[in-house]
């Protein structure tokens, strides 16, 4: 599993690109890496899953944990989901809890919209 953290033009949003199998063997590694990213000013994470070849329940658990951690001030958006990843999320009935977008731009727009909603409610 490879984890690449890419800066976006906004310093509160990080793009994280994953590569390989997101199974029990790599889930803790991903969790540690995301924790490091979230220690900075980052509030939102966009996960690019285009190169992910497999997602198990252990990987799903990490996605849900990131979701929870970013929920208050930002959010998590998944982009470029391969078929197998979509299938596992669907079978696990977690589609409604994990925000998905087709492109990076769409993901940025979603996070911006969420931020505005949260901004007005607080």
């Amino acid at each position, binding site marked *: 599993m490879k984890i690449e953290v890419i800066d976006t033009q906004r310093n509160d949003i990080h793009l994280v690109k994953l590569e390989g199998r997101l199974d029990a*063997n790599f889930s803790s590694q991903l969790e540690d890496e995301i924790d490091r990213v979230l220690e900075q000013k980052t509030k939102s994470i966009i996960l690019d899953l285009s190169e992910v070849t497999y997602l*198990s329940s252990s990987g799903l*658990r990490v996605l849900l944990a990131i979701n*929870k951690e970013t929920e208050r001030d930002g959010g998590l958006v998944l982009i470029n989901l391969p078929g197998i990843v979509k299938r596992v999320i669907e079978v696990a009935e977690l589609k409604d809890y994990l925000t998905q977008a087709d492109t990076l731009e769409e993901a940025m727009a979603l996070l911006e919209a969420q931020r505005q909603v949260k901004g007005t409610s607080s």
Partner: protein
Amino acid sequence: MNIGARLREVRILRGISLRNLARKVGVSASFISQVEQNKCQPSLETLRKISEVLEVNTSYLLEPQDYELAPSKEVVEIRLPNRLRYLSTLADFLKSVCQKNGVPTEDIEDILVAVDEASTNVIKYAYQVGPLNYFKVRVSLDRDLVQIDVLDRGKRFNPLENPPRSKNKPSGDEEDLGIGIYVMKKVMDDIRYRYSPNEGNHLTLIKRIFQSKGRGQ
């Protein structure tokens, strides 16, 4: 030469009844029964038809001693250490075996998902990672199903007894175990578990293939 005994052996191995075989060959059941008791000899033509139905070489029925019967079920097995890094090795193995046997891609994906979850549980819960140990994954291929047996000598662990997932919004704090077992049950057609102190945990996963059905919802 004992055609009768050999015929009976192959017929039972294939799970075909006397009546069923007779109907497919176009003779009476009592005739097949008599052949099996060596009370009468089938014609060459009938023998050829019988071989066809039983998917066995005619010469096997005639000269059983030095001919290897192609089994109806091929079994492939892998033995792996209780380390999570071998999960990818297991996936590669399963994919290769299934592809060689023409299992449809969608079914292969389901098999990979279920066996990965089952094996993760073996490593994490039956062995609790712990000192080096081994577990076995056995794949049996039949015409319309793939059976996967996962065997380990760890602590008794029955995934089917695990409590159902909570109805709350999933937070990631919840153990992934519940989600994993839920997914495993959903992508397989049947799951069985048994335990014995001598043989340890034995989980059997069944996936029916070559069926025109919608993907599980």
